[in-house]
């Protein structure tokens, strides 16, 4: 039916088509993984920016609160410890731990400040709560965005054929989520009577 030359041409064409398909698949698969990886990096940077903003804000708040009572010094110490932990954080796990420490320390500081009539009565307390609330909200969103990016990446590298490309091109098999303790990332809401 087919002559020898025709068979060779057909086989060559099929092989060329296969090579083309595999090549396109490799390129798109690789580029897809790069995009997902970069998305994680971008979202991680966003968390770092937000954490730095909170770190700076806590510094300003502490500086504005003078004359803490003895029983409130523990709160102050917790803030110092949290700030130190943040400043010394080098790995993601350390940063997550520092994030949680600062969140709790800040919440406790706000409770203490509410008991200072000079601050609470002046109205500046509510403005401060607005700033803190916004800050915590941005952090919560940044963490969520990051975790969604990680979820996309982790799901993608486990799917076929990307699971092959991930190993081939040296991509991580999975990336850790940004896990917070329950309640540590709640956003405070101002309530009026």
């Amino acid at each position, binding site marked *: 039916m087919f002559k020898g030359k025709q068979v060779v041409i057909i086989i060559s064409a099929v092989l060329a088509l296969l090579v083309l398909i595999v090549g396109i698949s490799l390129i798109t698969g690789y580029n897809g993984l790069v995009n997902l990886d970069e998305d994680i990096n971008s979202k991680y940077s966003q968390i770092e920016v937000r954490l730095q903003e909170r770190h700076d804000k806590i510094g300003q708040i502490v500086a504005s609160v003078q004359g803490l009572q003895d029983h409130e010094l523990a709160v102050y110490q917790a803030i110092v410890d949290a700030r130190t932990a943040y400043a010394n954080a080098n790995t993601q796990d350390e940063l997550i731990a520092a994030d949680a420490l600062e969140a709790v320390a800040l919440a406790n500081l706000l409770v203490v400040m509410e008991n200072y009539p000079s601050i609470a009565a002046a109205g500046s307390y509510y*403005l401060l709560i607005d700033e803190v*609330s*916004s800050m915590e909200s*941005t952090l*919560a969103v940044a963490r969520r965005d990051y975790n969604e990016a990680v979820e996309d990446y982790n799901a993608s590298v486990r799917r076929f054929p990307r699971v092959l490309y991930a190993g081939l091109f040296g991509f991580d098999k999975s990336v850790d989520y940004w896990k917070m303790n329950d309640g540590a990332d709640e956003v405070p*809401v*101002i309530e*009026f*009577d």
Partner: protein
Amino acid sequence: MFTLLTVLLACKKDEYPRPTSAFYINDYANILYEATRDSIRREGERLYENTQDEIDGGTQLVIATFEVEELDDIASYDKTDLYRQWRIGDDDMGILVILFFKPYIENEIEYLELVETQIELGYRMEQYISPAQLGVIIDNTLYSDTTDDLDLAVMHMEYELLSAIYVDIYGYESFDYDMSVFEQYLIDNPDTSYDDPIPMSLIIFLLSPFSTWGEKLSAILPILFIFFAGGGFILNKGGGGSSGGAGIFRRRR
């Protein structure tokens, strides 16, 4: 395969309702007067047009109202998700104000009361307007004791936000407004939002066996022409902006 994927993506369900064609005011709680909604829409359109050629321009100020049965239901709304879905502001220069209302019954009549206000700032807008500034504006307008009229309070808030945007961001010398003028505008434009949009006489005319098809067509064609050419298809829409959670929350206990 590609077509199927395209169709499936197009059918992807949005989490929140789409913005109305007015875009700058989305009164899903149906609590504002039409005059208020018109004023907010006009001011929103004006702001967008006036700032488009500025650096960091194309600012969009959008207000949405929602009715919730219980306070806990507010948790099902995420202001950041809503902002992102509606893509407010060119280059992330936008502000979304969400007002939540809860029903209550007095003398066997159901009313709505404002229970929580949330404001979301676009990423770039964060540089210009602080949450504390928003807090002051909300406290002096929506939560002020000086007025019990919701429409006046909402419009006052709109003007104050506009003032902050025009003056603080774009360097206008001032943004003047007069609440008594708006109050008079409300009085002069009684609400017609509950009226039937198509007069009953026209419907009767169209259904009437005594009018000819030619007469029916000549009556309905101008309306269809206005709708398709000038009305229904000219929609305000978001500038493609995104946000990162900055803003404020205010709840009335």
